[in-house]
């Protein structure tokens, strides 16, 4: 109860934000898909009863004859997409990350990845971008998907990168799993900088600390680096939007130029970016202390997204505090 006796207000339901204060673009995935599909008749869209919640509605409205809603059936969503790909189509299938992974994993592995089908899976609500609770928070999807041979795994940072990655996924001949930020998505990165599958991007230069980040955490890492610079800490940021194939060379080179490394991901701290960075530095023989910022090994409660992100350290302020505490 609050001081005046009213129940505390929660933004858990209906709150749909990445927590950014930057300018935004609406539905960057669906708009990019619709734009490129005019000249690409082989592109088809699918969803499992989440069309308007996964931003594929611009494609649905522009190309209704090429859009298939299979209902609440994620195994079938992926199976149907694989079948369409066998006939030469390029299916973009949308659902939430939790369902694309936990529910449809066998179909992603066998019908899509092992079969080398040209299927693109767009996965909404990555990590802590919903207050809906553990059933809807895809906190372990990057780990699950990067284990699948031949699958490209992308965790884009912002609206312009989502649009660019959508185009890159369409051009890539093979299966892709891409995390999706939906609705009003902030513009963070330079929209003119090229996006290439498998390539990391240096977005801040620094020497004391190097943050390796992916997805929406790159925005927070950049803000943290700016705040730290004002306090005399030189902090670089390497944005790694592609989890697989991983740009190991860029990560090893970046780590070798900084005093210590911090990883930042909107994901559990095992199996995802942190694990990849540690494996990479081990293989390359680069000895650096690595501090991991990400979600703990537990399921997360319901709550407003800003509350949860602050509670679990996924904010620029939290990154600054963690780095200042490093000796």
């Amino acid at each position, binding site marked *: 109860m609050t001081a005046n006796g009213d129940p505390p207000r929660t933004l858990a339901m209906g709150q749909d934000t990445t927590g950014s204060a930057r300018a935004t673009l609406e539905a960057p995935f669906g708009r990019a898909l619709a734009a490129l599909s005019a000249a690409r008749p082989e592109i088809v869209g699918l969803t499992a009863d989440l069309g308007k919640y996964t931003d594929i509605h611009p494609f649905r409205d522009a190309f209704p004859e090429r859009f298939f809603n299979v*209902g609440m059936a994620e*195994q079938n969503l992926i*199976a149907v997409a694989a*079948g*369409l*790909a*066998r006939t030469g189509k390029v299916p973009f299938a949308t659902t939430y990350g939790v369902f694309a992974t936990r529910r449809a994993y066998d179909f992603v592995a066998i*019908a899509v990845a092992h079969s080398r089908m040209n299927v693109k899976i767009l996965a909404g609500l990555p990590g802590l971008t919903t207050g809906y609770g553990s059933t809807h928070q895809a906190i372990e999807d990057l780990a699950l998907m990067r284990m699948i041979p031949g699958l490209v795994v992308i965790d884009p940072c912002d609206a312009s990168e989502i649009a660019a990655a959508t185009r890159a996924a369409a051009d890539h001949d093979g299966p892709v799993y891409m995390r999706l930020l939906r609705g009003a998505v902030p513009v963070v990165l330079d929209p003119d900088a090229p996006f290439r599958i498998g390539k990391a991007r240096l977005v801040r230069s620094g020497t004391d600390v190097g943050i390796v980040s992916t997805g929406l955490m790159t925005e927070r890492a950049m803000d943290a680096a700016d705040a730290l610079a004002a306090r005399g800490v030189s902090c670089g940021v390497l944005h790694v939007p592609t989890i697989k194939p991983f740009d190991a060379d860029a990560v090893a080179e970046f780590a070798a130029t900084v005093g210590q490394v911090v990883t930042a991901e909107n994901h559990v701290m095992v199996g995802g970016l942190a694990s990849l960075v540690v494996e990479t530095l081990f293989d390359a023989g680069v000895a650096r202390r690595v501090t991991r910022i990400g979600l703990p090994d537990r399921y997360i409660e319901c709550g407003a997204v800003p509350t949860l992100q602050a509670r679990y350290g996924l904010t620029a302020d939290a990154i600054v505090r963690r780095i200042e505490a490093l000796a």
Partner: protein
Amino acid sequence: MARNSPPDRVDLDALRRRATNLRRHMLTMARGQGQGYIGQGLGMADVLAVLYFHELRYDPGNPRWSGRDRFLLSTGHYSIALWAALAEAGVLPVAELSTYGADDSRLEMSTLDTTPGVELIGGSLGHGLGQGVGQALGLRLDGSDARVFVELSDGEMQEGSTWEAAMSAAHFGLDALVALVDCNGIQADGPMVLDMEPVAAKWRAFGWETVEIDGNDIAAVVAALQSCRVRDGRPKAVILRTLPGKGVARIEQSEKSHFFRVDVREWDGIIAAFEQSVEGMP
């Protein structure tokens, strides 16, 4: 050169001879490994003979021909039957059949889509029908009149994904999609561990035009597949009652027919008895 468009005239004796040849190929393969999922394959020999030598439109010299009818074997472990059919049809060399299940053979005990004539990776059950729905949707978008036949089994109906796919096929009105439901009454742990009856009523309830036949009666299979040529906005299901081991007495009588393994001497006896039983057939 495409063939089997399908023709109006039916030579049932010729189809029976093809079925016998498929059984002979399967025995050759199983003897080579000493084992295999031959019970299921023998049970489906008559259906495959009608498909590959009457109903399906395909080009043995060009298995990827875009205008072909698709046959998806969802039960990948029935591969022995598919290899027999593809060899008999001229897609695969008959001489290669002796490599069934051997290291580095293309003729695996469970299907991989890298072998010519295979339309999906089978093995994880419940995968075929949904991929058939996708293929039928894709072909329809292209304006193709090719059809999609998906074999699946009674045990496979226990996979929820089968019903997800069944619902969507009816919703999308995929009348070029035919489900061939092999009801042989066995699954890995023995006789059906879950009762799936009434099978036909289930498919009808899901919006499929459904016929139920003896899957080892060549004339009935021909007639059932002919009834599936109707393009009326509804998917078609053929419920096939088949006998595991059909045509090979020793395997028909086996209680272990989900997976059959005996020594080479017994295989020789089984094959000799089979050849004796088909002697003098039309």
